[in-house]
């Protein structure tokens, strides 16, 4: 409706357009993936494996278009509140990124170093990211949690979590 300079100003602060991109990409992906499936028509399965993906992909694309229009017109998703959530300040990446770091460290370490070590790092790192500064107490709790879950899963659920580096000791 309006000219390009307003479009630029409209894009500003509209991070929700990222959601539009995600929906659009997901829709295109689902449809492209379904399109490459080749199945002969079968009397016993007239719907085939492609129909639902096409519907779902279509739904995602339609949602992406409508959401784009909605956001550019000033629509906004309502961020989710909660009893321990304070929406008056912006997202605190200084907490979230270290938290994800601890999570990724666990993913990389779990098979090699074993759950007791990687789980300790995960818990201790998460506590640190969330503001815990009582290093010794935090560390003791982390080790205790990992050991307890390791043996709890082994004895209680019959699941062998990887022992990794501590193989033979545990």
């Amino acid at each position, binding site marked *: 409706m309006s000219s390009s300079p307003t479009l630029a100003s409209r894009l500003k602060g509209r991070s929700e357009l990222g959601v539009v991109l995600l929906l659009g990409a997901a829709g295109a992906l689902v449809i492209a993936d379904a399109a490459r499936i080749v199945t002969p028509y079968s009397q016993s399965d007239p719907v085939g494996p492609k129909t639902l993906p096409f519907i779902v992909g279509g739904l995602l694309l339609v949602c992406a278009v409508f959401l784009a229009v909605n956001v550019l017109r000033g629509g906004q998703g309502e961020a989710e509140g909660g*009893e*321990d959530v304070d929406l008056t300040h912006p997202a605190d990446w200084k907490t979230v990124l270290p938290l994800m770091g601890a999570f990724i460290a666990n993913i990389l370490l779990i098979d090699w170093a074993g759950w007791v070590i990687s789980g300790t790092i995960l818990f201790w790192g998460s506590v640190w990211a969330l*503001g*815990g*500064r009582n290093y010794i107490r935090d560390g003791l709790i982390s080790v205790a949690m990992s050991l307890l879950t390791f043996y709890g899963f082994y004895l209680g659920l019959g699941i062998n979590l990887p022992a990794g580096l501590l193989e033979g000791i545990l």
Partner: protein
Amino acid sequence: MTIVVGYVPTPEGEAALTQAILEARKSNSKLLVINSSKGDALVDNRYAQEPEIQTIEERLAAQGIDHAIIQPVRGHDAAAEVLDAAEEQKAELIVIGLRRRTPVGKLIMGSTSQRILLEADCPVLAVKAGATA
């Protein structure tokens, strides 16, 4: 000159505040009331809410004391907040309330008053609940 008082909404905290008011009137000093929280839990019963602060505000104003009330929530423990403020204000006196703690409790939780007593650069006046002059 300034007097710093660590306040918590408990009998000990009330006793400290009452004593601090007496001291401030005696020496005609400024009174800085600190009520802090680490802010690491949803609930902290030692963090005074709006109405309580209001009451203290009125009480100090009625006594004609030059005062300020601060409620820092910065993830620091109460001892650090009191010591920081005392240093910053070059306080002449710190007033705190004492409560009984079992040795085990002290071991686990640490003792705010002990840390203030040991680390403060100025005199510290420690008051027990129900023992005010």
